């Protein structure tokens, strides 16, 4: 039985929604419409000449091996990022949930990285891992590991994932911690009394009850991996070496602002928008039935 909120004043709900709607129109709908319209033209950099090409930009994308390469990089990058951040955050949340001296200190320190701006986090990683001037980078090379993310594509992708994950773990940690604390202790105790070991308790009682949080975080992390990792990539590798860390989002920037191919860039952002919308819709459909709302 769904609760309904009733407003006595007919205009109040619209008035309350208006600011948010205005923001959505100005900062999402309007640019999205412009992207859609720009995606069907080929223009020069300054917009002095425009030629209508219909779906030509889109066709060019899907026959471009570089675009498909960026797609592959994006999938690899985002799946790894989501898996790594969720696992790490969950482990830390379980550890921080136990009563122990200094728990508040640990929790604060674990949350702190989220306050660091993505580009700053990336520069931090640069000073740690650069093969020539980074502390850990030089240590690794001195101990025989041929670490060089400026030349090795795999190393670059690992580093970018690490830099992007570092602060996102804090974000996930907060939610997992809150989710864990919302689980009634009586359930956990009942399971232990019934003879379940800690592992069994976790998988059969705790994890299912965490599923709304987990589901929410999977969606947020995927969107983060697709869109909010631009700063990290730009500050660390600029999509290199080769195109090893050029995600779809980064390619939109490169094609639009460095190569001044605004038509192709707009087409790419339209494709990206469609992909994420589909992803989110699929997720809500299929994962919804596995979520246990306590």
């Amino acid at each position, binding site marked *: 039985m769904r609760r309904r909120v009733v407003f006595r004043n007919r205009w109040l709900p619209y008035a309350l929604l208006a600011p948010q709607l205005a923001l959505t129109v100005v900062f999402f709908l309007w640019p999205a419409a412009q992207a859609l319209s720009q995606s069907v033209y*080929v*223009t*020069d*950099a*300054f*917009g*002095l*000449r425009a030629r209508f090409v219909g779906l030509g930009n889109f066709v060019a994308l899907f026959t471009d091996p570089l675009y498909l390469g960026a797609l592959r990089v994006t999938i690899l990058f985002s799946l790894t990022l989501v898996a790594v951040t969720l696992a790490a955050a969950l482990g830390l949340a379980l550890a921080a949930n136990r009563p122990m001296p200094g728990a508040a200190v640990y929790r604060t320190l674990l949350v702190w990285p989220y306050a660091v701006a993505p580009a700053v986090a990336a520069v931090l990683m640069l000073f740690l891992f650069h093969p*020539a*001037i980074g502390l850990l980078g030089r240590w690794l090379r001195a101990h025989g590991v041929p670490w060089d993310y*400026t*030349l*090795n*594509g795999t190393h670059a992708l690992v580093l970018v994932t690490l830099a992007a994950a570092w602060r996102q773990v804090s974000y996930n940690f907060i939610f997992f911690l809150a989710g864990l604390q919302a689980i009634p202790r009586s359930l956990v105790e009942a399971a232990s009394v019934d003879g379940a070991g800690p592992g069994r308790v976790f998988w059969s009682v705790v994890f299912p009850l965490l599923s709304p949080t987990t589901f929410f975080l999977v969606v947020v992390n995927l969107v983060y991996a697709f869109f909010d990792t631009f700063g990290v990539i730009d500050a660390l590798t*600029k999509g*290199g*070496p*080769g*195109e090893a860390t050029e995600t779809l989002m980064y390619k939109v920037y*490169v094609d639009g*602002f*460095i*190569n*001044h*191919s605004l038509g192709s860039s707009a087409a790419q952002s339209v494709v990206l928008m469609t992909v994420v919308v589909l992803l989110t819709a699929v997720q809500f459909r299929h994962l919804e039935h596995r979520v246990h709302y306590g």
Partner: protein
Amino acid sequence: MVVTVALGTAPAARAQARVSIELWHALANPLGKVLEDIVAGFNASQSTYRVTPVFKGSYTDTLAAVIAAFRAGRAPLIAQVYDVGTATMMAAKEAVYPVYQLMRDAKVPFDPSLYLPAVRGYYSLPDGRMMSMPFNSSTAVVWYNKDAFRRAGLDPERPPRTWPELRVAAQRIRSAGAARCALSSSWFSWIQLEQFSAIHNVPFATREDGFGGLDAELRINGPLYVRHLETLVEMQREGTFTYGGRDATPDGLFPSGECAILEASSALRARVVREAKFAWGVTFLPYYPDVPGAPYNSIIGGASFWVMRRPDATPEQYRGVAEFFRYISRPEVDARWAMETGYLPVTFPGVERMRALGYYRDNPDAWVAYQQLTRTRPTPNSRGIRLGNLPQIRIIIYEEVEKAFQGKQTAKQALDSAVRRGNAVLREFQRENR
């Protein structure tokens, strides 16, 4: 008394309403500070105009900002655009106000023959009319660590001139452990391909490196280029060459002492003077001695000032731009900029002034850059590169070269691939600017 009062109020009213001109640039400190000083000098030298410099980030960011501002009808009147953006700016005929036309319309005396040919040619139409105002022009040189040379048993006053000599020197540095890295290169595409093409007088692209038309095609997979890239890949494998990353990222490797030899812009000077804690020297770019006539003159890099059109701009503002250009072309301003930054003077009177001040006698390294730029008359292959979307082509070159350094493809495959992808970019530019 009345006359004095009347005369007193009029100039005051004029001084309050200074004509305002914005200048968007990409020079971070310390270079940006010198530019600001020069602009302040112009503002103090007269009371009609005020130029306001605004730092917009990297050259790429600045150009993107200028394009976005133009599309919104709010372009800055003066925009600093890097060398590789020249073709883009030249193709945007309705967006730019050519300098030759500006100076003529503003009735400000302007003599293009005062500019160094290598500089003037880069920013002019084929018939010599100048489209943009040169300002910060650099060229590429070799920076080397004299202390490391001594440690390796090399003569610090006789640096290598050719590629074979350079390779031997790098090997000696590595085997003596004189530095962790023997040789590296900033701006790999600009120095190892574009400058390389100029000093060996081989074409980078057809149609006189693009000066002759939008239908140019790349020629960077010719035998000399393949041989050079193969040499560098071999050197990387033997540990004498280190690929340091894109654009100016490898710059820091030299002043820190990490790399004993660095091919980089002559404008690295400000950083080297400030940060290097060792004796250093500058020499010419190395060449292959079996190429007939080599070495030829190198080409400029850097940026120039373009004048943008703007619907609400007034003739007074453009007159102010012309006056500003006149000011920065003065020998003492040109010389000051060059002496404080390591960029080259762009006018002959500027060079003469620096010589008269004894600057080249006290700083022989600066003379190297000037000599290299002017040692021969520019040929069709050493006038500069004017290709559309050159920034994109450089990125393609970086990507392919990086794959070669990773061992994923041979030098020939890398350059063939770069030509194929680069030509596609050129054709797209041609299509967009028909």
